[in-house]
């Protein structure tokens, strides 16, 4: 690909959300908007290298794409509803050749797009795919790659989601204020899962996962910004908490993996590699969220992350406070994984036996028996308690369940350490 083509594609990707937001708002049709945008990309690839990049690329793209949509509507046989749309488009369309970007207002419609893509009537995986496709400007291939599904499967998932939006009448609008809390929950959950998929790297070891984290952070920023400017809406504590949580995690990115791609656990990370600007922004956002006095799970997780981020050395970590936050989180959203984290925190705060006491509850073992981190955490507590034989067995168990290469390498190293220690004891 030539340099200029790369620049054009970069601009298209960056502006995709705003342009599609505006186009779908006018056309009321995801597919028509996407097809028109695709045609406009081809036009831009021809013209921009000759004419230069327009001053306001997003407005240029939107205006040209509107025309492409009109052409498409003219070419195909359309029903009554589309006829009415075509008439309306033609009424507002200018006739001169060169797109006049000031002729049409170009409002930011992305908030509508976010709420439509993350509508709870769509399956969660469809919400995520659609959000990345339309707001993130990722290609179907990239999304398929990130979620390790075949490209045709992802393409079908997107098509089904768009069909459902059309056929079931999912509205393209910011929901009424009365239902914002529950609808925002769905949006935050989708953004959280996009970030997590990038961060946790549960399967494989791809670079595209970093792009997912960056995209989730960018979209959460957009969401907060748009909500702040939407009449009737106000700053949401959990949205701020989620952004804080993402930034505080992302700040550790450079320290999490070594040169060989091996995962480095929190207390072994080189904390000088933690990105201070992100930590500071995360903590500031969390403070802003907490002032709203509407506690929620994202703020609590961010608070836990902030306590880690504020410890200059692992020994300085405020583990009792972290354990208390996990207990509060468990009351709000009970889950065995939170209980596991509480056990680890208690083990650090008061000694490994306190953690083991929680992990050895039969119910927790039943629920988390297939989860490698349960066995890894148990192994770590046993190792620190000096029970190397038992620790060895738990590390081995964790290894059989773990699918991530970096974690496997780490667990294997610990297994060998425990084997050696067991011989010496």
């Amino acid at each position, binding site marked *: 690909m030539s340099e200029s083509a790369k620049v054009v594609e970069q601009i298209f990707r960056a502006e995709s959300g705003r342009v599609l937001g505006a186009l779908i708002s006018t056309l009321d049709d995801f597919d028509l908007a996407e097809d028109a945008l695709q045609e406009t990309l081809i036009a831009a690839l021809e013209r921009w290298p000759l004419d230069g990049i327009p001053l306001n690329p997003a407005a240029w793209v939107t205006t040209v794409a509107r025309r492409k949509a009109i052409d498409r509507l003219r070419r195909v*046989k359309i029903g*009554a509803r589309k006829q009415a749309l075509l008439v309306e488009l033609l009424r507002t369309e200018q006739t001169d050749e060169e797109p006049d970007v000031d002729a049409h207002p170009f409002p930011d419609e992305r908030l509508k797009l976010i709420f439509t893509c993350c509508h709870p009537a769509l399956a969660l995986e469809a919400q995520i795919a659609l959000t990345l496709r339309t707001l993130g400007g990722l290609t179907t291939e990239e999304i398929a790659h990130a979620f390790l599904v075949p490209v045709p499967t992802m393409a079908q998932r997107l098509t089904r989601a768009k069909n459902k939006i059309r056929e*079931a*009448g999912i509205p393209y*609008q910011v929901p009424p204020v009365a*239902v914002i809390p529950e609808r925002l929950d769905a949006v935050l959950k989708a953004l959280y899962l996009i970030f997590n998929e990038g961060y946790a790297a549960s399967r494989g070891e791809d670079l595209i996962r970093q792009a997912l984290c960056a995209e989730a952070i960018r979209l959460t920023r957009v969401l907060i910004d748009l909500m702040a400017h939407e009449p009737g809406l106000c700053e949401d504590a959990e949205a701020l908490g989620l952004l804080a949580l993402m930034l505080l995690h992302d700040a550790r990115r450079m320290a999490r993996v070594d040169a060989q791609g091996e995962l480095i656990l929190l207390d072994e990370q080189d904390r000088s590699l933690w990105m201070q600007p992100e930590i500071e922004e995360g903590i500031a956002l969390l403070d802003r969220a907490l002032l709203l006095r509407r506690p929620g799970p994202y703020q609590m997780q961010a608070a836990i992350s902030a306590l880690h981020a504020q410890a200059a050395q692992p020994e300085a970590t405020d583990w009792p406070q972290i354990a208390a936050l996990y207990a509060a989180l468990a009351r709000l959203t009970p889950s065995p994984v939170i209980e596991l984290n509480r056990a680890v925190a208690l083990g650090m705060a008061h000694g490994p036996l306190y953690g083991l006491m929680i992990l050895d509850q039969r119910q927790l073992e039943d629920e988390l028996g297939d989860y490698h981190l349960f066995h890894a955490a148990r192994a770590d507590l046993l190792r620190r308690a000096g029970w190397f034989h038992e620790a060895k067995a738990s590390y081995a168990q964790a290894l059989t369940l773990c699918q991530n290469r970096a974690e496997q390498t780490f667990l294997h190293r610990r297994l060998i350490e425990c084997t050696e220690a067991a011989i010496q004891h």
Partner: protein
Amino acid sequence: MRYLLLIYNNEIANGQQTPAEMEAEMAAYNAFGEAAAKAGVLQGGEALQPTSTATTVSVRNGKTITTDGPFAETKEQLGGYYIVDCANLDEAIQWGAKIPGATKGLIEVRPIWDFSQG
């Protein structure tokens, strides 16, 4: 857009209601019907007899096969429906949530195919 709101409830639990509970439920349904009619969205609706009265019929190779009971045995059974005309799914969901049966069973919201639109 028109939507069919299908009301799924547990028939066994419904059958064990006291007369007072049944009366209260009838009143709640009447109130819902009035509200939906007043808002201009209601286009129809009926309550159904229990599935013990249902018959399933199919035709294979020209032969009519009749069996006792509903097509599928599920925990919740179709007990009634409303047809509403709403601006969009969000509105239909809001009406669905107001159906008294939504608090005990579930409401399926299905768009009705509109063949007149392109």
